[in-house]
């Protein structure tokens, strides 16, 4: 019983630390991850430097989407590392608790920083191998035994140290906030976004700003709160003008999804996948399934459903869509006449919003985004024109629209 207390301390520390400090960061690992029982997945993984740890890591990462599983898995891995190290050292007659605590807490910190579970799994696998090899050696008598209180106090101190290191690390904190905002945006939890991406915080973490505006738009508060945030230009508002990359496409996929422009949402999702480790991910596959179902393209939606069904945890998600498709009717593809005339997307979100509107696609937030874009561009003439054409949409004119009309901006 006494022997179980030190690893329990490490387990509890890693569990609470991951749950309280990094929950969203691990959800993002699932969003960016992929595990499929398919030939192409395994052949791609077998070409990587450490395929076994990669495959096991990908398998475990699937569970990170659901709240408590990532903390449990991290804590279990860290605890297993503790037990293995202690057992290996015990084979040589050495006291193992404190070295095991030091190594397992180090592993916990490393896992906290790692972008995927792969390295952590690799360490545990290597420890398993060393442990197995140590079993081949004769067991030595215990030397230099330490009192229990010292082992417990030392282990607790190391676990607390790891907890504090993670809690106080600015990089990890910022990463967790960004992850929290992205996870909330994927789940359309606009209040959660606004609780994290506050005006004060967005002054220093400017990548949060577009998400704050996305949430304000969906809440119908954009015109009242735009300038409460430290917005300098339209690129803060919609990421226009910023270099293309993961952040850009992650946001755009969400933005155009909420603005009911599925073509550009799918385009951005595909682009996002090219920045993810496998060139594809659970997040993108789920997005494609949902978007193509919504677009009435059942042939493609069924393909992505079939692909996702080769993962471990998507049975319910896939069933949700397959049942609806079985009861629904796919949309007929567009005619050549339509396709040759349809407007093309541009790099300018404002222009795209106008085109979507002209095509009859008017999400509730679209008008506010157009008006705020014009305000940020300083194009007050266009602002007045657009607002006049949609004046009946506002029983009470938002604060900053009033100020703009009064010449106060």
């Amino acid at each position, binding site marked *: 019983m006494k022997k179980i207390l030190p690893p329990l301390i490490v387990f509890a520390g890693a569990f609470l630390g991951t749950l309280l400090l990094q929950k969203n960061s691990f959800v993002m690992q699932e969003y960016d991850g992929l595990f499929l029982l398919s030939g192409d997945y395994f052949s791609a993984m077998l070409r990587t430097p450490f395929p076994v740890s990669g495959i096991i890591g990908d398998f475990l990462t699937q569970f990170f989407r659901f709240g408590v599983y990532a903390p449990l898995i991290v804590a279990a891995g860290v605890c297993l590392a503790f037990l293995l190290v202690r057992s290996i050292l015990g084979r040589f007659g050495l006291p193992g608790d404190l070295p095991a605590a030091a190594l397992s807490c180090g592993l916990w910190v490393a896992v906290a920083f790692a972008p995927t579970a792969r390295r952590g799994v690799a360490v545990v696998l290597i420890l398993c191998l060393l442990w197995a090899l140590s079993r081949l050696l004769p067991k030595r008598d215990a030397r230099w035994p330490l009192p229990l209180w010292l082992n417990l106090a030392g282990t607790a101190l190391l676990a607390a140290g790891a907890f504090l290191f993670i809690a106080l690390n600015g990089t990890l904190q910022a990463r967790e906030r960004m992850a929290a905002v992205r996870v909330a945006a994927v789940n359309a939890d606009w209040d959660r976004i606004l609780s994290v991406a506050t005006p004060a915080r967005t002054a220093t973490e400017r990548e949060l700003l577009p998400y704050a505006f996305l949430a304000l738009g969906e809440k119908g508060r954009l015109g009242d709160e735009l300038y409460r945030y430290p917005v300098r230009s339209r690129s803060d508002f919609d990421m226009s003008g910023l270099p293309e990359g993961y952040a850009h496409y992650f946001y755009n996929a969400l933005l155009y999804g909420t603005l009911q*422009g599925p073509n550009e949402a799918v385009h951005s999702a595909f682009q996002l996948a090219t920045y993810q480790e496998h060139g594809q991910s659970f997040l993108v596959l789920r997005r494609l399934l949902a978007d193509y179902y919504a677009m009435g393209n059942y042939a493609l939606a069924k393909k992505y459903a079939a692909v996702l069904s080769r993962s471990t945890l998507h049975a319910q998600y896939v069933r949700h869509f397959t049942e609806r498709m079985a009861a629904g009717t796919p949309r007929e593809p567009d005619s050549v006449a339509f396709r040759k005339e349809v407007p093309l997307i541009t790099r300018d979100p404002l222009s795209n919003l106008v085109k979507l509107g002209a095509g009859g696609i008017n999400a509730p937030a679209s008008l506010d985004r157009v008006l705020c874009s014009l305000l940020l561009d300083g194009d007050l003439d266009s602002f007045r024109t657009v607002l006049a054409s949609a004046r009946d949409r506002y029983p009470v004119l938002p604060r900053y629209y009033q100020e703009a009309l009064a010449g106060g901006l």
Partner: protein
Amino acid sequence: MKKIAIAVCLLAAGCGRVHFAASDAVPEIFPDYVGVTVPETMAALSFEMADGRKLSYTSERVGDTLFFHVKAWKKGSKEGVAYAPFKVFLSKDEIPPYIAYRLIEPNYEGWRDMGIYARELASYKETAVVRNSANGRGCVNCHSFAGGDPGRMMFHARGAGGGTVFRDGEELRLLNLTTVGPKRQGTYPAWHPGGRYIAYSSNSTQQSFPIAGSQPVEVYDHFSDIILLDTQTDSVTTCPHLFGDAEMETFPAWSPDGEILYYCSAPQSEKVAANRGDIRYALKAIRFRDGAFEGEPWTVFASDSLSVSFPRVSGKWLLFTASAYGTFPIWHREADLWLLDLESGALRRVDELDSEDTESYHSWSPNGRWVVFSSRRLDGRYTRLFFAHFDGEGHFSKPFLLPQQDPQHNVLRLTSYNVPEFVDGDPGQLTDAVSKLFQP
């Protein structure tokens, strides 16, 4: 295929307890191999019930025909159906042992991993000829083999320090076409049957994305010309009829004797994006002799409702892709294959090969008896390869999907097959060697 003839395949346990009612109908299977004609040397056709039921089957060979006897039942059910046997016809017409193709996600602007792969047709073995890990994840594309010779090939490797990679036996070299002649990069290649010259189109290509509707991507050229590379001297020459501002020339293809270059051409448009729906490419040709084009080009086929891509000639037959407009038919679901008899001028849409969805790139086998073509008929997006037998009289057999060991592979693979080309042998694996060309 011999394996099929003797195969007794029980794909699921438990069918022995099921009672099977006889049916006059043939089974609906995926992939649809009912009534197809396949080369004798083709890998075994693996299939499943299209509706997901369990199946077991046996096959027997009678002459040049395989008869498949299929039984199917729902999992857990004690009632099943024993279907009427369906036929697969075996052809003794030779087919090259390999095909090469590029695998790439049907993405928009970007990509991560892509590569040129070779597939042995007698088995399911697929090997990477070159992956884009060799050139820093740049694009590798437009592979071409001189007369199907696996030891003599070229492909473009884009990105920093990129260019066109030529392989001649063990020798690999990188040539940046933008540094020679008219300083234009090569795009679509056509290797002259004599092996010395390669005609390239040089395209300024742009992707665009419709803001709504079912077509996700449109691709068009702002301009394009045709250039000629002499692989012995690495010199690039042009011809006024194929290079200039008045026309956009693309998709070069040689006649089997190498005396005619076929290509597609459309008048230059100033606002290509806005006018994309009105740009149609005609099929043209020009004579070629002693390393130079000669005479005036002439129009082989032009239409105000069809735009021509990918002309490919075998004997007197010219197979091309036609879409309603534009120059990138893979994103046009109306794109179909058409067959032109160059002697009689007879033209027809090849209904036996075409589907409701896109048909695009295609290649003839050297003996003109087989064609491989890309189609998006499975799901509308992910291009898959289909083969069909040609009788030499203008008719194709029912096309069949490239066999895979697991039929679901066709569904689960998240990449498209581009530019299928027949190859006379295994091209080998070049990734490591190519990566050395890109080392500083």
